[in-house]
């Protein structure tokens, strides 16, 4: 049997139909108004989770993008500063080449020294360059000025206050990019390649590798000389500058006396109580020949001496030592071979180690000024050494520039990729939570029509009653 229908049921049905349709209409309207398919989590729980994750990805990308934006000017400024540094170095090289010329007067050399110091100051400015409040070349200690000049006059030296670390920023998931090249690699990384001796005293490089920086001076003195043939002695109170073993040949026929490889010296008459003979290297001894027997003789003179590194603390020299270790306070350790010592004096030693470009430049300026005191040739030799050092340093700087260039390229590539990804994610987010307006509009129209039909049919249905006909 068919169910009985009552007016109540009809009312209920009509009402329900209108309510349902109105509700759908409101939902569709809300989607159109907000433009969003998901406005509360229950609209699409899974989609909501996806949205939250996508938003996080987009936020991440935004962080990475702003890191890249922040990093780029820093890397670019650093690169242009290094380029500037390299220019300064090129200028310094030209000045040093000029200084090497043998035809300069001391005034000219002083003037070049001034110019080199100017360049050094310019370079110091570059090394202490900042971006905002950060020093570009101080490693991660970027609140500290990396290079300061300490000391006075010839003793000036540069010290590095930064560290050797690189600042990293995250530019993608798990990808860091280093922002800076520490100054220690750019300006202090060059090393000498060998230890060299000026060659005055016959001191030679020892067997062991040396340790330290720059130049040092070693003093040698003679303490005693022995091995004379009968009748010949060292004149009392006279200077002794010969060291080591040398033959002392007295030729009775020629009436000459010869020390080692030196020139023969004529023995005057009467026999002198002070006759100076010297080796080719300049090691001399003053002889008292007043007791000479008049016979020819060949004696083996042995002059013993002492060595000092600071002009004060003398140590006797063992002439058989091939690897004498000398510790020079504040500079380093060198090893010398004393077997070929031939005379006293001060030996200039340039030895292996690392130094900063500022030390090189200031040293070069000092060398040029020193031309007057140490002799032009010595000064030129040192300058030559500094010049090759500077070339090494410049190549270090250029390596740093290359690294920064590579980073700038990586930053550009990263930025492009991040932009691309960001667009992709935005698109995904939009597809996930935004309403498809065409679809919603269609839905809206459809629901509207249904509602209208429901209203119309309901109105007609409710009017139908038997009462109309009674």
């Amino acid at each position, binding site marked *: 049997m068919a*169910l009985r229908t009552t007016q109540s049921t009809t009312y209920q049905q009509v009402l329900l139909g209108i309510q349902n349709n109105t509700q759908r209409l409101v939902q569709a309207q809300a989607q159109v108004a907000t433009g969003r398919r998901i406005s509360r989590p229950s609209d699409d729980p899974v989609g909501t989770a996806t949205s939250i994750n996508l938003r996080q990805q987009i936020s991440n990308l935004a962080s990475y993008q702003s890191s890249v934006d922040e990093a780029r000017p820093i890397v670019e400024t650093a690169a242009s500063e290094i380029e500037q540094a390299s220019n300064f170095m090129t200028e310094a090289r030209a000045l040093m080449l000029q200084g090497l010329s043998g035809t300069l007067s001391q005034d000219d050399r002083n003037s070049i020294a001034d110019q080199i110091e100017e360049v050094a100051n310019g370079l110091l400015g570059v090394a202490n360059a900042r971006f905002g409040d950060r020093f570009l070349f101080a490693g991660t200690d970027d609140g500290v000025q990396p290079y300061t000049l300490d000391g006075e006059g010839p003793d000036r030296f540069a010290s590095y206050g930064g560290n050797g670390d690189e600042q990293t920023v995250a530019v993608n998931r798990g990808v860091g990019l280093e922002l800076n090249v520490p100054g220690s690699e750019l300006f202090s990384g060059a090393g000498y390649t060998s230890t060299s001796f000026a060659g005055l005293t016959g001191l030679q490089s020892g067997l062991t590798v040396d340790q330290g920086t720059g130049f040092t001076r070693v003093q040698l003195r003679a303490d005693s000389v022995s091995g004379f043939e009968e009748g010949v002695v060292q004149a009392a109170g006279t200077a002794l500058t010969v060291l080591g073993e040398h033959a002392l040949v007295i030729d009775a026929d020629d009436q000459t006396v010869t020390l080692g490889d030196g020139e023969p010296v004529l023995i005057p008459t009467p026999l002198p109580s002070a006759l100076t003979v010297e080796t080719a290297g300049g090691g001399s001894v003053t002889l008292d020949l007043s007791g000479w027997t008049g016979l020819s003789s060949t004696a083996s003179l042995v002059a013993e001496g002492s060595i000092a590194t600071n002009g004060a603390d003398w140590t006797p020299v063992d002439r058989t030592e091939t690897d004498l270790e000398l510790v020079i306070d504040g500079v380093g350790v060198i090893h010398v071979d004393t077997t070929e010592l031939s005379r006293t004096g001060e030996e200039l030693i340039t030895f292996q180690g690392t130094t900063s470009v500022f030390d090189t430049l200031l040293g070069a300026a000092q060398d040029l000024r020193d031309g007057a005191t140490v002799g032009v040739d010595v000064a030129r030799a040192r300058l030559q050494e500094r010049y090759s050092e500077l070339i090494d340093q410049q190549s270090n700087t250029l390596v740093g520039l290359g690294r920064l260039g590579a980073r700038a390229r990586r930053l550009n590539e990263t930025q492009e990729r991040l932009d691309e990804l960001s667009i992709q994610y935005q698109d995904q987010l939009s597809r996930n939570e935004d309403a498809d307006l065409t679809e919603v509009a269609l839905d809206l129209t459809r629901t509207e029509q249904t509602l209208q039909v429901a209203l119309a049919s309901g109105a007609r249905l409710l009017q139908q*009653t*038997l009462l109309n006909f009674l």
Partner: protein
Amino acid sequence: MTLGLNIGLKGIQSSQRALETLGHNITNANTPGYSRQTLDLRASRPLDQIGVIVGTGVDAEGVRRIADDVLNRRLVGQAGVVARYEGLTEILSTLESLFSEPGGSGIGEAYNTFFESASALASNPRDGVLRGALVDSAENLSSSFNQLFASVSELGDDSIAQAEALSTGINELSAEVASLNVEIGQIEAGGGVANDLRDQRDLALIQLGALIEVDVQPKPSGVVHVLVEGQLLVGSSQSYEVAADVDDSGAPILNLEGGTRSVQPAGGELGGIQHFIDDILPGLQDDINGLVRATILEVNRAHSVGIAQDGGYTSLVSALPLGSDGADFLLNEPLASLDLDFPVQDGQLRINVANDATGDLTVHLVDIDPDQMTVQELIDEIGEIPNVQAGLDSAGRLTVSSNSGYRFDFSARVDPNPDDLGTFGSGYASVVATGAGPYSFVDGDGIDLVGALGPITVTVNAADFADNTTVTAEELASVLNSNVELASGQIQVESLGGKLVLQSTATGSDATFGITGGSIAGIVGLTPGATVTGSDTPVNPVLTGTFTGEGNHTWTFRPTIDGTIGATPDLLVEVVDELGQPVASLSVGDGYTPGSEISIADGVSVRFDFGQVSASDGDVFQASVVEDSDTADILVATGLNAFFQGGDAETFAVAQSILDDPSQLAISATGATGDNGALLKLLELQDSDVASLGSTLTGAYGTLVSGVGSEVSSAGTRLATEEGLLQSLEERRQAVSGVNVDEELVDMIRFEQAFGAAARYINVVQQLGDTLLSLL
């Protein structure tokens, strides 16, 4: 004749009754709960008229309501189910709107802002404005969580208030049912039928069922009993009041007057509330708390081992007390039994102490076993580190401070000068024994040495040691060092990695001593006859870089032969880890330029200066390289150098020290002000899975919100289904009991005509009588 009139009368009367009944029906067509009524007609008992059985007309038997009691009872049940989901949907919709997701200013946004601020600061670690911005965004994150949690909990409280309001409704309805029971019982006992009262009672029962799940039991007397979870709510003549209360878990319960136990109905609006409070709310609160705890733990792990702006700490106070009021008895409690937000793990804490003047860093490892180590032992252990003190302040918080001129931190940075003792080609003359402790000594054991002033013999006695059969190198060193002769001989004794180290007190090539013999030398592994000399050219090993490998290790460096760094052919320095596994073999002989860096492994490099190293003197140094400098989580557990404090969503907050002074933000991993290592570690959090959550922080949050959305959506779907079912039951009830006005109008015409016919019949009977009378 009389019979005929009687028949006509009964006809008229019954038609009139029928018309009255249908009038009652028509007028009650829209009355809620009304069941249509119908007049039962029956032919009257016939009369035996001398063998002829004659009908006597119609009798109106009574007015009957057309109702299906089973259906009505199902309606009571279904109304309860619908009300449950209605109540639930309402609460859950409010709940989901608390999250402001997706895309609103919800917690997802707060997380994103937090990490964005951190990233911006990582690009400019010294920028004070960005530092403030990070603190603000952290505060925004914590207060968002506080607010969410408070709102969610408030929703629970609101629900309980709602339950109280519902209990009033229940009491009113049950009282109504009870009074209807009485009336119905009285009427029906007298043989009547209480049709309209029954309708009223059915309606009241449906309304009651919508509030609370009830069991309706009809009784033969016409009354119904209403039971809630087997306990009587409404009896034959009286109802029992319910009173709302909350149980231990905070869920609403009802106490029934005279009931034996409280009830927690599953159905009805109350059931919906109860389901939310019992089943949804605690899980949600746990999830939120879990997320908050993971955030605090992971952020603090990254932050606590970082170093703030001024490059190391001189004083730190933990955020949490290790015991209420710092009471003494808590000092002897193991760390595991303390009431801390996060547990202390079995592991190590690394403490670095830096000398401000020299920049020298010493690394100290504190082993922590939370089940064994007491608070006092932890304090003692930290306090033993030179230049560092530890203690509890008046509030019971752990304080760590350093002497003036020293700073400490907990970072994982590589110790740049690992050869603290000077046992690796240093200026000191030193020899490292080959045998590791513990050793066993008896009275008179001694060692013969040649010191600066000539031969020395140092002897020990069993009584010198706590236990002379298990003497550690450290213990032996301290006993030997107390010997005055040894000191005047310019010799000191140390221990390194469980082995004894003999060392000159002076440095340089003049510093020298010899070992000539003695039983101790044999026991600890020192070769008699050896003479060691210091050096003017210390090797000074320097470590650089940042350890990027996994786990925490102690690397041991040893030369393979005697030789000179940078000069001796085939000179290697072997590096092994704590398990003796090789890490690297460094070629530092004639091909090596002293002072240049050699990479060891995992981002760490070393450089050596020119100088002699000796394998035969046991030259060695150790360096600790760590991934996590606080594997014990002691910093996080106590809140030392914390970013966030608190242990759940209610207490979640930015640490007060950081709010007071944003420069306390530990950004650097190395102490350099431009370093952002600690912050980068923190930033890794946004992309990496957190162990306790099994996903990233935002991922877990997404899952949580999605879960709430699913609950709402499934409750909504369920509600629609149940409403449909209710609707169809309602339709069926209408089909059975509803009034169809048209139907009634048809009946009206029918009975109107019957009335007319009966009247006509009386007329005919009357005419018959008249006819007969006229015959008289």
